[in-house]
């Protein structure tokens, strides 16, 4: 447990202090949101119809941005050797890395998402469901992303490879999250898709650390 908190603190410090992490993702998100009206034209009705789904999809994309640094930096500078010889098993470290990624990247994105959705013209009443989906779905983005990041260890241009590995796995959370937001907006039953999103995220959180650790061990050997 001590090892877990040590590595979690380190990961958080690295992603917040190193700059780039959250700022980059938030900047990307805002830039995409401001490009949307330019691409769609000035018709507010069309914007309102598209905004929630768009915000959700871009959140998924923005969470890809700093995945490359999740394992690659530790692998390149030798810290992964040290981490592999520590008190916590690599699975625990992978869990800490995923949670740190969530706290530093998708968490802030989930808080920004409702602001973007409302700014694009959607009703304020959508804000709670957008935050909820962002925070819950963000977990699955981080952990599935972590699997991609660890699988691409040691390859050149890992970033592109990560996106190719991970994006297909993003399909279920993107569908469930968008479904929940849309149903909520239309005053339909939004609980079912939200619960499915919860289930998917919890499964990803529970299972992905094992895959990440196995891939990291393979890269070290």
């Amino acid at each position: 447990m001590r090892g877990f908190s040590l590595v979690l603190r380190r990961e958080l410090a690295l992603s917040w202090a190193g700059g780039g992490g959250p700022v980059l993702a938030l900047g990307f998100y805002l830039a995409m949101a401001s490009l949307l009206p330019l691409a769609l034209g000035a018709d507010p009705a069309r914007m309102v119809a598209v905004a929630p789904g768009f915000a959700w999809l871009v959140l998924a994309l923005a969470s890809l941005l700093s995945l490359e640094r999740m394992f690659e930096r530790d692998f390149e500078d030798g810290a992964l050797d040290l981490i592999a010889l520590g008190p916590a098993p690599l699975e625990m470290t992978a869990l800490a890395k995923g949670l740190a990624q969530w706290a530093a990247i998708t968490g802030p994105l989930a808080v920004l998402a409702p602001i973007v959705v409302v700014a694009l013209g959607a009703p304020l009443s959508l804000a709670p469901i957008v935050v909820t989906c962002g925070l819950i779905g963000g977990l699955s983005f981080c952990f599935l992303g972590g699997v991609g990041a660890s699988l691409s260890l040691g390859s050149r241009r890992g970033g592109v490879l990560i996106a190719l590995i991970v994006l297909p796995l993003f399909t279920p959370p993107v569908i469930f999250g968008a479904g929940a937001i849309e149903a909520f907006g239309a005053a339909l039953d939004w609980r079912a898709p939200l619960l499915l999103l919860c289930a998917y995220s919890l499964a990803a959180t529970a299972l992905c650390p094992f895959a990440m650790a196995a891939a990291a061990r393979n890269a070290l050997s």
Partner: protein
Amino acid sequence: MITAISIESLAVARGDRALISGFNLTLDAGEAVALAGRNGAGKTSLLRAVAGLIRPSAGRVVFHGEDGEIAAEDAVARDAHLIGHQDGLKLSRTAWDEALFQAEWTGGTTASARAACARLGLGKLLGLQVRKLSAGQRRRLALARLAASPRSLWLLDEPMAPLDRDQRGVFGQLMAEHLAGGGLILAAAHDPLPIAARPIEVGGGENAG
């Protein structure tokens, strides 16, 4: 606590190439072994195999404790230090943050980390970012965890390469104290170690077979 290790007919392959085969070695408490061999002979792979980072293609490494054999994973996770070619330091963090993490991660405390840094002459550098340190200073920062957290088995891969003469002396003292306290050292080094060590040749290499 590891009191002895025995490497039994170990074989390590990298890709299709067999680097080491039939390697035997016994290392007892208070003993140091210096691995010599050409570039590419497999010294680093041997150390990483002992650390459990590489799965050997044959043979095994047995760790003995006071009460008999210890499972390799436990032995390495609790009681071995590996100093590799890379120092495992984050350039953007301060020297102290990194030294403290490395020490705590391997079982040391804030006080022991501070004492170890002072011992290695890092006192004035601790506030600096790692990127501002020289190669020798970074290596000393990584070596600080050897002194900061007591672990029996030291696996050292060219530990002194970037160190100057004075620092080699300090490091030699550290190693001598470690051995006197019943520690074990397995080091790959081209330069002679500043302590009495049993030389072992690791075969193979670029020009062999």
